Each structure stands twice: as structure tokens, then as C-alpha cells.
């Protein structure tokens, strides 16, 4: 079991290590899917199907040019931010306050999970020891108790 788990872990690590590899075409696709069309249609650049869009063709051409020129993903995105403003990025990616967008949900989720686990633990401790059913209920009340068990265990 332990062996299998460690194999799984290695697979995941390998997967993470290999993240980021790719040719120019896939880079074009990846970066293009992280940018918005500037025409205001609210669509991802490579998905903009706005008929007669004044911007998408030009922007796609610029993206191809930038990718071909060999710049890094970050430099290409910075180039677009310089030209079209921060709203051209499909997600907050410029560092600084933009990081808050990513951190807050994660922190709250982790805190929530820990809080829930602690809450359950505290409740469990407070609820004390279990009392055996026979001690908790007199023989005369067994039917009532059965009914309660049925009620509490019915989905």
C-alpha cells in the first residue's frame, strides 16, 4: 500500500516537474487563452467570435509575432499589458495586489477546513463518553429508541 502511494507521489512530482514544457504553437494557445479580447466582448482572445471584431485579428497577429520573437510568457504578457492595459489579462497575474486574488480563497479554504476539523474535535470532546444503549434507555422505552434510531439513520 505504502509502495503504491509513493509511486503515485512520484508520478505527481514528475508531472509537476514537467509543467511548462511546450512548443511555440502550444505557447501561443496557452498565452492566448490567458488574455481577453480588447473589444469589450468579454471573451478570451482566442475564443472571440465577435463578428466584425475590430481587435481580435490584430491582437492574434501580435501574439503570433511576440511568440515567434522568442520572448518569455511573462514578457509577452507585459507587452500586451503595456499596450492594452491590465484588463487584457484574463486573470490577475501581475504580482503585488493581484496575488491577493489567488491567496484569499486558498487561505480561507485552508482555515475553513482546519476550523471544521477543530470544531468537530471540540464537539466530540464535549459530547463525552458514549452511553451504551441499554444504559441510556429503559426496556420499556426500547420502541421509542428504535424509532429514534430509524429517524436519525434514515437518509
Amino acid at each position, binding site marked *: 500500500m505504502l509502495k503504491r502511494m509513493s509511486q503515485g507521489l512520484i508520478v505527481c512530482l514528475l508531472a509537476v516537474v514537467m509543467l511548462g*514544457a511546450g512548443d511555440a504553437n502550444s505557447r501561443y494557445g496557452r498565452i492566448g487563452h490567458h488574455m481577453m479580447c480588447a473589444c469589450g466582448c468579454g471573451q478570451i482572445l482566442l475564443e472571440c467570435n465577435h*463578428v466584425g471584431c475590430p481587435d481580435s485579428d490584430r491582437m492574434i497577429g501580435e501574439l503570433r509575432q511576440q511568440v515567434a520573437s522568442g520572448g518569455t510568457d511573462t514578457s509577452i504578457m507585459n507587452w500586451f499589458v503595456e499596450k492594452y492595459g491590465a484588463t487584457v489579462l484574463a486573470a490577475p497575474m501581475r504580482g503585488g495586489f493581484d496575488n491577493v486574488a489567488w491567496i484569499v480563497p486558498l487561505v480561507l479554504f485552508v482555515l475553513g477546513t482546519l476550523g471544521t476539523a477543530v470544531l468537530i474535535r471540540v464537539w466530540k470532546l464535549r459530547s463525552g463518553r458514549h452511553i451504551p444503549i441499554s444504559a441510556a434507555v429503559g426496556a420499556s422505552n426500547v420502541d421509542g429508541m428504535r424509532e429514534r434510531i430509524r429517524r436519525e439513520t434514515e437518509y
Partner: protein
Amino acid sequence: MRLHPMPEFGSFTLLLALTLSAYTLVMGGIALWRTRSGRLDAGAGRLGETARRAGISSFVALTGAAFALVWASFTNDYSVSYILHHTNRALPTAYKFSALWSGQEGSLLLWAWLLSAYGFVLRIRHRVDVRLTAFASTILAAIQLFFLLLLNFAAPPFAIQPGPVPQDGFGLNPLLQYPEMVIHPPMLYLGYVGFSVPFAFALGALMMRYPGEKWIHITRRWTMVTWLFLTCGIFLGAHWAYSVLGWGGYWGWDPVENASLMPWLTGTAFLHSVMMQEKRGMMKTWNVWLIFSTFMLTILGTLLTRSGIVSSVHAFASSDIGDWFYGFIIVIFGVCLFTFFKQKDHLKSENRLESLVSRESSFLFNNLVLLAACFTVLWGTLFPVLSEYVQGTKVTVGAPFYNRVNLPIGLFLLFLTGIGPLLAWRSTSLRSIRRNFVLPGIAMGVTFIATMVLGVRPWSAGDDMQAELFSLITFTLAAGVTTAIAAEFLRGAGVVRTQTGKNLLTSTLLLVRRNTRRYGGYVVHFGIVVMFIGIAGGAFNQSREQEMGFGDSMQLGPFKLVCQSFTQDSNPNFDTEYALLDVFKGGKKLTQLAPEKRFYIASQTSSTMVALRSTLANDLYVIYEGKNPDTDKPIIKVFLNPLMNWIWIGVLIVVFGTFLALVPNMVRVAVPARVPVVAPIAAEAHHA
């Protein structure tokens, strides 16, 4: 002076509905005040009855108003500004009807009318619990009053167009001229508005310190039906986006979509956690705030999309009714907070959680995950506003953000969907865990290996690694959850078979009919699994764009498309350009597709009509993007979307499961009113 009989009738009925709702609120409130603490007061009883009847009558008045607007649409009455701006003479009949909800004023009227319809049913069924219903009715009247104030003073649907009456209207937004658009908004609104009812019952029950959990039994069907409407509304919208918007996807994380998803997430959390209150008298405060939040999120969503706070492709732009919603949401929150603090001793839990490994804790984590997803959506929707406030720059929060943050949350939820029902109430023993998890564990292992053998190998997927990893985990978890659900059915059916001697199929049917809620819930879970499979298929999407003249071909995956012709046509509503493309696979012709681009004459706007070949394995999704002005040849974009149909099939299964859960059990077991528990039961609770 011109006469406008129908618009004037509409305005009059709106004013009448406002008066009746105000009467229901004030007189209903007075009657409840006079009969507080269970005091008998015949006069107050009669006053309460008049308030109830006024509430019923407000439905009749609002029906009159809705009828007047639809009538104006059908009779091309362009003296009404709303009709002028949202219809035209050539508009097909069905869309003339849908003009009722295609603009700000009309959709607010639809909201008010649906609210009055829900109120009508609630007030007719008041004998279920007269006093609790009176509270709920009064609260509903307060909500209705707000919408009627808006309709009468801020966004009147019967406003008269100044000057001479134009001969034709400006037409309906072309994107809304699609059959699903006739039912998607009403479904969504039925969901939004419907949450007012459980909210009203919860607030009413808290105000009157309602003893026991009967109010939950009363509202259970309301909540489930409302949830079902919202589910259908959301997915009809997704299907519409997929079929009409022509970008190859179905969910764009637009603020309007987000606004519908947030109450759905909290509503789903409520449907789960409320079971803990029903069964064990726990989580009372949590549940009350969940339903309060769900209702407030429906209003917040409306505020976001109608106030211009966030920009959206299909929001109602910036309008001045945003201030009204700010005021309303503050009042609701104030009332909820005040009532909660005043009555919070009534919400004390009767039991405590006893084990981390129990059904209760799985519900808690389920709630945590759903709320985390809801928060993420809300956070992403509001972050551009926050960013502008903090750093002076508005940023975009789009699909890459939501996908990255919500995917792990979604997978955790899928995991919980599988293990939750396998855990017993109160506490689960190690032996029980081993017994219940063996089969799902094996299924997951086999699927993991089989999926990799079939070619899903994230580590060699390059840039698609993350998407393929998500798919691999999804397929693996889906197998585990499906096996767990199937095992639950088989285990239960086995017991019934032993008891009755019937065959397995009959025993399964008997099992389901004996506890429709539980097994309907399992079916819903299975539907969610199927939807996840469909979503995971998105990791393998392919697309290609090409100029295609007569005889030109394009290869995408196993499909070859050959252009047979391209032409144009026109009718009074729109001009159209389309291409006829033969689709081949392995040299055999499968079908002919006709992607189209329309130009709507009245509104002077264009729209694409997607051509789709849909099978269980994949969707071939073809768009006519326009013509290259240099070559005069059409530009065709083709997507190959694997497993797409599974999403819609999953939704159908969810709908079926919800219907099943709504059916009363075959053998009705009388459940006595819950009494506070004096001592815990030690025996490990078991299923069924």
C-alpha cells in the same frame, strides 16, 4: 391626447398589486402582533384572513399586468417604450412572448409575478400550518412590495414613448432569439424567486420561535423544487451559451452566470445540512444563515448585474435601480441579523458531533466545500472592483482564475459525493469503512490504470498537463463514486429481496419507493458524477479554423469536412449566410452541417448559428465566422469537444433524481415531532 387602454390597464394593475401587497404586509403584521404568544383574538384572526386574501388578489393583479405587457407585445403597441425597444413586427410569435423578460422592466415584472404566484400557492395551502404560513405570507408580501415599488416608480414597464408612435420596433437582441431563451430565463427566475419561500418560512419560524423542525418538512419540497428550477435554469443557460454564442464553450464565468451559480451553491449546501437538523437537531444556526444567505445572494446577484458595478456581456448595463437594491439588501440583512440575535437561544443544537468519521462531518465538509466555491465565485466577481479601489486599476478575473481555484474544490466535492453516503450517522467504525470502501477503491484503481492505458497521461501532455491531470483524477473518482452508489442500491435491494422474495429489479424498485428521498439523492449524485465526466472531457478539446471554398476540406481528429456550397438567403426578420459542409469519418459520409451567420434587420446586429453533430463520444461544433473580404470564401471554425453530451445527460439524471426525491414514500412512516434528546445513543447507527 392619445389613449393607451392596455398600458393604462397594466399600470393600474401594478398600482393595485402594490396596494394589496402593502395591505398584506401591514394588516398581516398587525394580526400577527395581536396574536403573539398564542393569544386568542378573533378580530386579529379575521384581519389576518383579509391579509391572506389580499395577498392572493395581488397575484391576480400582477397576472393582469403581465398579460397587458404580453398583449402589447403581440399587438405591436409601440407606444409602450419597453415594447418598442424589445420587439418588432417580424419577430416570431414565441419571441414576442419572451419579450416579457428580455429587458430590465419586463424581467422585474416577471420576478414580481412569479413571487406572487409562489405566494398564491403558499396562501392557498395555509392550512398546513396557519400561523407559520401567516408569518411567511407577511414576509413574502414585504419582498413583493419592494419589487412593486420598483415597477411602479423606478422601472415602469408601461412607460409611454414620447412623441409620435414609430411604425416598427427596434427588435429583440438576436442572441435571445433562440428556443431555449423562451424557457431559460423563466426557469432561472423560478429558481431565484423560489428561494424567497424557504427564506420566508425560516425567518418566520425564527420570529415566532417555531417549536421543532416541522417547518423544515413544510419547506423541503419548496426548497427542492426551487433548487431544481435553478439547476435547470443554469444548465439551460449553459446549453444556450454553447449552442448560440459560438465560442465552443458553455460557461464563461461571466458575472451574470456567477450570479446564478452563487445561490445554487449555498442552496445545495442548505439541502444537505438541513438533514442534520431534521435528523439530529443540529446546525440550526448554520441552516438559518444558509437560507438567509441564499436569498440574499439572489438579491446580490440582481444588484451586481443591474447596477453596473461589474461589467458583463449580458448584464442590464448601468441603471439607476442599483440604489434600490443596495437599500433592500441592507434592510434584509438588518432584519435577519436582528431576528437572529433576538431569538438565537431558540437555535441551540440538541446534539453535538461525535466523530470526524461520520455522516454529519461529511455534511459539514460538503458545506465547507460548497461555501468555499461560492466565496471564490463571489470574490472573483468582486475583485475587479476591489482592485480598482485599492490600486486604481481594474483587472479582469476570467476563466483561468475560476478554473484554477475551483477545480480542486470541485474534485474534493466529487470525492465527498462518493464517501458521504457510505458513512453512518453519529460514528462509523473502521470495520464498516473497510467493508464499504473496498469495491469503490478497487474501481478507482482499475479506472486509474485503464485511463492511463487508454492514453490519458498528464506527465506527457506538455501544456495540457494540468487539464489532463484533472481529467485523470475525475475519471478515477467518478468510478469510485459510481461504484459506491451502485453498491448502496445493491445492498439495499439485497435486503428487500431477502424480505420479499422478489427478483433484484423489483426489489430495487421497491427499495427506491420505500425511501425515495434517499435513493433519489443517490440518483442526483450519480447525475453530478456524469456531469463531471463531461466536464473532464474538455481537457481533450481540439479546434481548427480555415477558409473553405467550394470543394475545400478540413481534417480535425477522425472527421473530414468538405465544403459543398456556400450561399445566402433572407426573410423579413434576418438575412443569412451559410455553408453546407459534408462530414466524413473513415471515408464514410456521416451527415451534412450548415453553420450560419445571421444579420437581424431590425436591430442591425449579427449572430452566429452553430451547426452541431452530437454523439456520446464527442461533439463536432462548426461555426461560420464570416467571409474573407479578399477571397469571398467563408471562414469556418470547427471544435471537436469530447464527452460534451455527458454534461447534458448528467443534468437530465439530476432532474430525474430530484423528481424521484420529491415523490412521497410508498409506505408512509409517521414521523413524530422531534423532541430534544436526553442522552446519546451509543449503538453505531446503520443505514436504512
